């Protein structure tokens, strides 16, 4: 019998090594906050964190960054007046700024086996300096590579024992694509449902992309 449920957060995060690339969804909501707290407690360091934005001074991303465990941040947006902005200015944090659509597509590419792609996004900007560009269909395009995760931390509304997931409204955001792109995909779910309870046409993230699920009721 396939059963991806694990008893607690510690079991969910067991084995995450130093130097891992961690994919973390979330855009206003849909962030796996309990797993993130668990990651800080778990102790892995020298991490590369892939997340939409560097966040503000409060909130889970700030707490993880402030813990000093993140060596490199890959994101689309950093405020100068934030933990990420100040750590970068002080030379304590490596930063890779990626346009948000390119970030999402690089993650999707990793999950889909696409080895590289060209996009006009950012091709005529300083983000393209020193990188490979090529004119395709008359448009200047920039070569982009996938972002593979060692681990993805995912937030779900419902999960069954196969790891089939639903996500609430705009809390879906990066969750389905990050689940596809990591060697180890760990889910925190608000609700546990029986296999078959999620209507098959309404599964947002199929369980084939999911390895471990922990129930976090609220």
């Amino acid at each position: 019998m396939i059963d991806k449920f694990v008893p607690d957060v510690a079991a969910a995060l067991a084995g995450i090594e130093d130097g891992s690339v961690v994919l973390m969804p979330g855009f206003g909501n849909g962030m796996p906050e309990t797993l993130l707290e668990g990651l800080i407690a778990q102790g892995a360091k020298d991490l590369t964190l892939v997340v939409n934005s560097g966040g503000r001074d409060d909130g889970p991303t700030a707490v993880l960054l402030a813990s000093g465990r993140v060596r490199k941040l890959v994101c689309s947006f950093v405020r100068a007046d934030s933990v990420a902005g100040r750590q970068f200015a002080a030379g304590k944090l490596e930063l890779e700024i990626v346009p948000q659509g390119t970030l999402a597509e690089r993650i999707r590419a990793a999950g889909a086996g696409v080895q590289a792609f060209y996009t006009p996004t950012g091709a005529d900007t300083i983000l393209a300096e020193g990188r490979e560009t090529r004119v395709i269909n008359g448009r200047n395009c920039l070569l982009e590579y996938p972002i593979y995760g060692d681990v993805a931390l995912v937030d779900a509304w419902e999960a069954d024992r196969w790891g089939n997931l639903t996500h609430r409204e705009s809390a879906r955001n990066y969750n389905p694509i990050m689940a596809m792109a990591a060697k180890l995909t760990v889910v925190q779910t608000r609700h546990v449902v029986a296999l078959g309870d999620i209507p098959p046409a309404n599964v947002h993230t199929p369980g084939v992309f999911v390895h471990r699920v922990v129930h976090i009721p609220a």
Partner: protein
Amino acid sequence: MTFKPLDRAGIAARIARDIPEGWFVNLGIGIPTGVSDHVPVDREVIFHSENGVIGAGPAPEADKINPYLVNAGTQHITLRTGGSFVHHADSFAIARGGHLDLCVLGAFEVAENGDIANWARRADDPTKQVGGAMDLAIGAKRLWVAMEHNTKGSGESRIRRACSYPLTAKGAVKRVYTDIAVLEVVERGFMVLDMVEGLTRRELQERSEAELHWA
């Protein structure tokens, strides 16, 4: 005669006037966010939000907030009947794949060749607010910009011959709505489509670094 610049809501309202029924539209952070408030509900315009919302509706009443439903500015919103949700890669496929009729972005500067600068003030700026702007700028069928014509402090013109800040995209802007004028980007540069009442052509040119053209 004196003139009265539009306030930020006034710019948003001016833009809303020019959005026809049936368009699929993305609104950036800042002045553009306010545009949807000025589109009458009976004019069916579908608003896209980068975090995966198709059919974004107005803010809910305080007792009807859904914590799982926000827009790209992380403000609580509602979903219009007929709306739907997609994941982030599909949401940006909408932006990059040419499916938006219009995107309205804020900016620091726009140049007469349609270049836009809106994410950093210099290459080593510790603020790096790229977000989705580069994707939206290259992908939407039309890019309009909403911004004040001049900077607050020194009154420097944001309407430039060439951008001095790092670019978001090259040659992407079709139209600029400022607090005093509406400018179309055409082959020879900025063409003035509209000005606030009481403003003279000379006064508008004085406030613009780029040369302006009149139809």
